[in-house]
């Protein structure tokens, strides 16, 4: 059971959301992270934020916004922070779903709710966000090219058929969350997590999400040169 679900975006039930943990890797996002957490906690009260050595007071802001904040002793990379957050969330009492969410405000809460809802209703253990299932998101030509290329490489390596390989919005049932064991500390974790989830054989689906490319997130975005680092990190271990 894999592939594209019917385009339904009914949010998850309150009961499901009460057993959901949102995981947010955090690194120097003081300007936006407070609002992101407050908005998220209106529907998903359990938020764990892994501060990856921010120097702009992000951790304190996240804590004030009501997130459980775990602090890495120094900057180790987004993959490292994501793994720490998932490891914490999946062992919390009663945890049924783990949602990974970006700290910079580019994800929409309603997408996250609909993804948990899809998992709850249709039994997908893994729901991955994709910005290319419809045409709401316009990342620009160059970024689209790089992302499509990344998706092609990931698909070739994992045997999955994803339309978007580097989307940080994911909803995992707790059994799928237990499969994740990221070794890639930096950005290559996005391919690694897909590979690990794909190998698990658990039912998965992609879900069309909208990414808000604000001036803020654009300014902080990945440089195209970094895709070289991702490939090297994946190949040399």
């Amino acid at each position, binding site marked *: 059971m894999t592939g594209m679900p019917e385009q339904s975006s009914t949010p998850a039930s309150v009961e499901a959301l009460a057993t959901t943990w949102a995981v947010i890797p955090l690194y120097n996002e003081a300007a936006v992270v407070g609002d992101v957490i407050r908005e998220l906690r209106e529907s998903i009260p359990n938020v764990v934020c*892994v501060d990856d050595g921010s120097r702009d007071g992000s951790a304190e802001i996240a804590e004030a916004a009501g997130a459980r904040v775990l602090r890495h*002793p120094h900057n180790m990379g987004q993959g490292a922070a994501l*793994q*720490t957050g998932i490891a*914490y969330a999946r062992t919390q009492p009663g945890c049924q779903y783990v949602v990974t969410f970006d700290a910079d405000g580019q994800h929409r809460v309603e997408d996250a709710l609909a993804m948990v809802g899809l998992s709850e209703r249709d039994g997908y253990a893994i729901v991955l966000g994709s910005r290319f299932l419809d045409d709401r998101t316009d990342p620009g030509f160059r970024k689209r090219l790089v992302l499509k290329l990344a998706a092609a490489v990931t698909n070739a390596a994992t045997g999955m058929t994803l339309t978007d390989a580097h989307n940080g919005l994911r909803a995992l049932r707790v059994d799928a969350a237990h499969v994740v064991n990221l070794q890639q500390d930096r950005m290559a974790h996005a391919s690694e997590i897909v590979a690990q989830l794909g190998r698990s054989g658990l039912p998965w689906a992609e879900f069309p999400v909208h990414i808000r490319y604000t001036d803020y997130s654009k300014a902080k975005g990945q440089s195209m040169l970094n895709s070289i680092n991702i490939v090297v990190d994946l*190949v*040399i271990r």
Partner: protein
Amino acid sequence: MWFQLVLVVALVLIGAYLLLSKPGARHLAVRRVIMLISLLAGVTVIIWPGLLTQLARLVGVGRGVDLLFYLALVAGLLYVVNEYKRSVMLARANTHLARELVLTEARLTDRISALEARLDERAP
């Protein structure tokens, strides 16, 4: 000059080592054997410098110094690759260690705040 072939093969092997090998006890043993052989070879050519030139002529390089230069390059490259792999391994170990620390601390503080909450309930 079939020594060119030897050099190319050596570089290809180093590339394969960079991409394919997983560190372990066998690699440590191989590294140590290579180190030992290099030391013995070093001592040998220091005592009998003529040997190096003879060897160089044998493989078609010409001068002993040239042979030494090529071998030093291969050795240097091997060292760089080795250190790179080692630094990747150390970074992983460091991340793992830091994560365990963070998670242990989190479990402890969660437990403590749960206990404190229970105490507050009981307090008059």
